[in-house]
């Protein structure tokens, strides 16, 4: 078994399952902050998915995408905090 198939048939499915689990949390909530952190986790998992995908396809190009995701993902979380905090203070 090559690394590529290992990733395709083991690692990526694991990550896929992880994505689905997180999605369940987004559905369940119950509060908005739960959804926000789930979203954040989703993106982090996305970084992982893209990384291993680039190994599987042997295209380092995709790492660039992962880098962008990692760099700015937290901005969303910060924006939500900003908003919720402001709303809470109102």
């Amino acid at each position, binding site marked *: 078994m090559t690394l590529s198939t290992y990733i395709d048939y083991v690692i990526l499915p694991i990550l896929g399952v992880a994505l689905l689990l997180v999605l369940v949390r987004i559905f369940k909530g119950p509060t908005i902050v739960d959804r926000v952190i789930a979203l954040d986790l989703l993106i982090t998992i996305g970084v992982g998915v893209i990384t291993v*995908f680039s190994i*599987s*396809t042997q*295209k380092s*190009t*995709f790492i660039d995408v992962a880098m962008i995701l990692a760099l700015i993902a937290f901005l969303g979380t910060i924006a939500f905090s900003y908003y919720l905090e402001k709303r809470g203070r109102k």
Partner: protein
Amino acid sequence: MELLLVILLGVLYAAGIFMLLRRSMVKLLIGLILLGNGANLMIFLAGGITRGKPPVIDDAAKLFTDIYADPIPQALILTAIVISFGLQAFAIVLLKRVYVLINSDDLDDLNTPEEEDI
């Protein structure tokens, strides 16, 4: 995979349309965003999809040595994404103005009677 994506395409359009038909302006905007995603996916699919072969020539090469994904739909979608961002940004701010004006985002309230025309 195409079948799955083409179903996703239908779902995106259907959801977009459904959201367009709501009374809330926020939902309207979301609907437009969904439709925009749908249109992008349509372009993406229509051009044919190729897994894991980005249209980037290897550092060492001057030409593609392998097959590669069609770059045109990507360029088109990129343009479309950026354009929709501009429109969305404006639309979202318009939503803000609407809210300031009528104190709600209920689209049914957007009817100044004709008598108030200048």
